[in-house]
């Protein structure tokens, strides 16, 4: 067969787990077992029952492994799914019925399993209760597992040699099964950097890149590929030079990563003594251990809306308090900054009310101010969790002083409520706002009079500022962190905040981009809050430069007129000073 050399293709996805992998693709498509109805003879009944029992035993073994692994790596909240599935496998009534029917109807096990479980599946799917509906998916997963084992289909995880697993999507369970073998990296079309798959990949120290639309139409099993989990780059059919480049990078990173470990307990301070706060962004409690390992100065952003995932109703004040309290304890004595619910209004809307342009619509603080009861629940929960005096509250998507004042009023009300009931809290709980709307940036000095700190959310700020939707493939190139307008805005935000004695930090993705670090230091940023993975690299940069030097860099960049010029300058600088640090 004629093997034409395919043209090298460089794709950019979202980095989900750091590391570099080079190897052949394994295209993973979720297997849909086809069910045939077969009549069996009286003599075959015993054998068929045995076959089913074996399949069930194998399924139990598999699920137990997966469950234990999940417990260990992710904690019991996440491993609950597998626990429920194991229990389903023990359902006496279900399997009694299947065995009875097998003997009576003399049909094959696959058909009976599918048929019986379908009844329960229907029952659960139509339940009024959300919990029951979720379990319907678990039922389906268990069914598929039994069917797979019946076909004695070795789970596709038994792949020969080491591969880069490429898939449309990867459920947590699939990730865990695959890891048993030599998986070089995970690459998916769907998924965000904080999906469970990403978390698992990081815990397993396997590189991963997500969000590569249309990938499955571009690759086949055994195609060569390079995966750069630092920058999110995936190179299909790499040519010899590219291969050489990445092989070198790979060895460099390994030695570099090892060298970074001792930095953990050292402060993020420049050579001339300028101290910077280097904190972590988190979404799930499971990340708390990891951020400690990475030596974070506390949490610069905890996304409280992560408590709402998959839920139809808001968690109660009590439920929220439990979580906030745990987080506060876990990072004590360092600080944890809790951003209040940052959600789109779609959580409250009917189909008829859909917004045409939700990005410019009812979201962030706007929603919470319109739902004061829900907001008060959260504020009370946060205040109650603040007794260790290491929490702070941050308001999202603020555009006006009015919003801040209303927010503050509600906080006062929440405090009064608690005081009346004799419930303790931190009277001086610090308050800050996200600067992610251009208007907020322009009045940052006014805002800074009302609060103790500002945190720049570059992800949204840049979208609003440059009128670019990052999720829109057609224009995503135009989303430029180093656009001169962005740099100017950053300079002004920091100046305005500082002049009113508020500290100014950044929790957007730009804070975790090593290419931007020196510039941001030079612009006077007081705090970086980053994805935990990249923390050591950023700390290394901070500790290896002089603040005065960074200021010069910032001054130079502010004179430049194009992002190309700015990026080239910074890349040059980084290659010079930090050739080991991966830049995108």
């Amino acid at each position, binding site marked *: 067969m004629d093997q034409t050399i395919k043209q090298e293709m460089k794709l950019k996805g979202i980095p989900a787990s750091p590391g570099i992998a080079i190897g052949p693709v394994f295209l993973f498509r979720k297997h849909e077992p086809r069910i045939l109805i077969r009549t069996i003879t009286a003599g075959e009944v015993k054998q068929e029952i045995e076959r089913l029992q074996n399949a069930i035993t194998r399924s139990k073994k598999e699920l137990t492994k997966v469950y234990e692994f999940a417990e260990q790596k992710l904690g019991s909240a996440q491993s609950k799914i597998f626990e429920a599935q194991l229990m389903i496998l023990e359902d*006496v009534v279900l399997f009694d019925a299947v065995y009875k029917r097998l003997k009576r109807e003399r049909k094959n096990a696959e058909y009976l399993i599918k048929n019986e479980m379908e009844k329960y599946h229907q029952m659960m799917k139509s339940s009024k209760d959300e919990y029951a509906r979720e379990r319907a998916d678990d039922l389906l997963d268990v069914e598929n597992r039994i069917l797979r084992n019946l076909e004695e289909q070795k789970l596709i995880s038994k792949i020969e040699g080491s591969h880069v697993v490429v898939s449309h999507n990867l459920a947590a369970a699939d990730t865990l099964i695959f890891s048993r073998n030599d998986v070089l990296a995970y690459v998916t079309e769907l998924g965000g950097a904080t999906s469970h798959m990403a978390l698992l990949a990081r815990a397993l120290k396997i590189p991963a890149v997500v969000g590569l639309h249309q990938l499955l139409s571009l690759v086949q099993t055994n195609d060569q590929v390079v995966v750069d989990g630092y920058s999110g780059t995936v190179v299909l059919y790499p040519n010899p030079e590219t291969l050489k480049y990445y092989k070198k990078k790979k060895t460099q990173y390994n030695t570099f990563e090892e060298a970074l470990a001792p930095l953990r307990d050292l402060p993020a301070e420049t050579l001339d003594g300028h101290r910077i706060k280097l904190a972590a962004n988190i979404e799930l409690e499971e990340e708390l251990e990891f951020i400690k390992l990475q030596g974070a100065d506390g949490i610069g952003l905890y996304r409280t809306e992560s408590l709402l995932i998959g839920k139809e109703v808001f968690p109660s004040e009590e439920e929220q308090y439990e979580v906030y309290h745990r987080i506060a304890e876990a990072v004590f004595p360092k600080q944890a900054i809790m951003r209040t619910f940052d959600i789109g209004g779609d959580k409250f809307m009917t189909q008829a009310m859909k917004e045409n342009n939700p990005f410019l619509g009812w979201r962030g603080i706007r929603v919470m101010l319109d739902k004061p009861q829900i907001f008060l629940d959260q504020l009370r929960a946060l205040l109650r969790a603040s007794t260790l005096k290491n929490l702070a509250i941050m308001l999202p998507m603020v555009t006006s002083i009015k919003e801040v004042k209303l927010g503050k009023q509600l906080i006062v009300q929440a405090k009064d409520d608690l005081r009346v009931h004799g419930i303790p809290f931190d009277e001086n709980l610090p308050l800050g706002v996200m600067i992610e709307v251009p208007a907020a940036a322009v009045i940052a000095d006014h805002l800074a009079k009302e609060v103790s700190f500002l945190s720049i959310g570059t992800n949204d700020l840049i979208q609003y500022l440059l009128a670019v939707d990052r999720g829109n493939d057609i224009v995503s190139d135009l989303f430029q962190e180093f656009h001169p307008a962005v740099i100017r805005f950053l300079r002004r935000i920091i100046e305005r905040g500082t002049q009113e004695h508020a500290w100014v930090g950044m929790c957007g993705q730009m804070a975790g981009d090593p290419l931007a670090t020196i510039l941001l230091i030079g612009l006077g940023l007081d705090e970086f809050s980053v994805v935990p993975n990249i923390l050591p690299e950023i700390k290394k940069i901070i500790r290896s430069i002089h603040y005065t030097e960074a200021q010069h860099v910032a001054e130079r960049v502010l004179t430049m007129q194009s992002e190309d010029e700015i990026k080239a300058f910074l890349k040059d600088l980084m290659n010079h000073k930090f050739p080991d640090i991966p830049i995108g």
Partner: protein
Amino acid sequence: MIEQEVTIRNRAGLHTRPAAAIVKLAAKFKSEFFIEKDSFQINGKSIIGVMTLAAEQGSKLLVRFDGPDENEAYKAMSELFESGFGEPI
């Protein structure tokens, strides 16, 4: 045959753990065991069935025992419910 009302006492309601506790307990007895909620009936010895109920704190369920040890079964089961399945109330 015994038919009585029980209440869900624990905060988290009838999630996976309590469901498993109910089914485990019911397995110890010979009597048939059914649970009814809002005229929806399930076999109490089936974990899937109990999971489907997904009742929340405060819900009232009807439990039905039929068999030689129905009294003991009911007693044990009502104690389990009263204790909130050993979880925070």
